[in-house]
């Protein structure tokens, strides 16, 4: 009987533990590529403390928004979304601390600044994983019309694109390869990459079917979808890329031309993230 009627009948404490377990699973699965990236450990002590503190503060509204549009469960109030965001941060912190300790990246002879710096930069992707995956591991029928309604708002779509862009861009941004690619690219390469990014983004937008696009008449529909979702999405991807590069101190001492190249390079994974966010969340 318990199996057939689902989670509503389980005792509250068990239900809660299942949710936390899912969150931990998500935190580790989403964050392990970064937990195993050397540059990320180094950011723990080389990153500007101000940039790191701002980054963690930016994560909070991001998690709040993700909870609002998906989240651990159907939320009924703003307070619950805030609660979910803090639970995700806590899970992200503990998961990052455990994994870094397990890898020998945190030891007692380190300064508190280094230890918390390492955990602080890792808890961002881990907490995003915690909040997104707990939704993914849910049975599909738990998805409510209300959630669907929220997500179909234009602002909701833009937010999800931004969140997806941030997460995917963040996964590759710490590596030196981003710089190397930017240095190797000529102007022609950069322009081609912009075109490919926009095409990929539009392909996903078109296939996935964003809100409102199918109701338009054919010809106008294409251009409206293209402008409202694809170009708006690419703009978000570029802004997110620039922010992530700034966060990791990649924008300092760099000429404008190289900076634009780097933004375009990171804009590619950011576009893919923006385009596919809707599939994941």
């Amino acid at each position, binding site marked *: *009987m*318990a199996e057939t*009627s689902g989670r*509503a*009948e*389980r*005792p*509250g*404490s068990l*239900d*809660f533990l299942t949710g*936390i377990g899912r969150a931990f699973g998500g935190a580790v699965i989403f964050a392990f590529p970064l937990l195993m990236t050397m540059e990320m450990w*180094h950011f723990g*002590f*080389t990153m*500007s*403390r*101000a940039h*790191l*503190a701002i980054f*963690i*503060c930016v994560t*909070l509204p991001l998690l709040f928004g993700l909870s609002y549009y998906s989240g651990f469960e159907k939320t009924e109030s703003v307070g619950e979304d*805030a*609660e*979910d965001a*803090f*639970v*995700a*941060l*806590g*899970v992200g*912190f*503990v998961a990052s601390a455990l994994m870094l300790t397990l890898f020998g990246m945190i030891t007692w*002879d*380190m*300064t*508190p*600044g*280094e*230890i*918390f*710096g390492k*955990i*602080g930069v890792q*808890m961002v992707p881990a907490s995003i994983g915690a909040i997104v995956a707990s939704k993914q591991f849910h049975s599909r029928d738990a998805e409510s019309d209300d959630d669907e309604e929220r997500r179909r708002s234009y602002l909701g779509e833009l937010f999800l694109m931004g969140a997806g862009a941030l997460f995917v861009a963040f996964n590759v941004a710490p590596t030196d390869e981003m710089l190397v690619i930017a240095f190797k690219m000529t102007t022609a390469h950069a322009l081609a990459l912009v075109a490919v990014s926009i095409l990929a983004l539009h392909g996903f937008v078109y296939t996935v079917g964003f809100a409102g696009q199918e109701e338009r008449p054919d010809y106008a529909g294409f251009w409206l979808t293209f402008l409202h979702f694809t170009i708006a999405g690419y703009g978000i991807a570029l802004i997110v890329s620039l922010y992530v590069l700034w966060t990791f101190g990649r924008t300092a001492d760099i000429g404008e031309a190289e900076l634009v190249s780097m933004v375009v390079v990171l804009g590619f994974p950011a576009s893919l993230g923006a385009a596919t966010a809707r599939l994941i969340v």
Partner: protein
Amino acid sequence: VARDREPKEDSATKRRLEAIAATIGAALTLLTLGVIVWDGVTAPESPPYITVEARGVHQQAGGFVLEVVAINRGGRTAAQVEVQGILRRDGEAIAESTTTFDHVPRGSQARGGLFFARDPREFELELRALGYSDP
């Protein structure tokens, strides 16, 4: 059947647990932010200041290893820190060895070793950091 029995009590338990978890999460976040900001505010704006100290000598087949530790007392992290050890007798350099530390974070230390063919304990030992790059 079970659904009608105690749904309120169960969801109240869950609520309470969620509130506790959220409080812990908020506390951990504030702690992390606090340490990071404190770290940023208290860090002196001075370049890396690296001293190198000898820790011990071990004899090995074909030579000796001198364990060294590089300590950064400056305000910034140093990358690619090159450390040099020179063995002298009456001021004259007899042997020299170098090693490179990837990172020496500020307020931290990094460990390594220098190999010598002869026993460093029988000479005057000069240890110093040659240079670094900003990470």
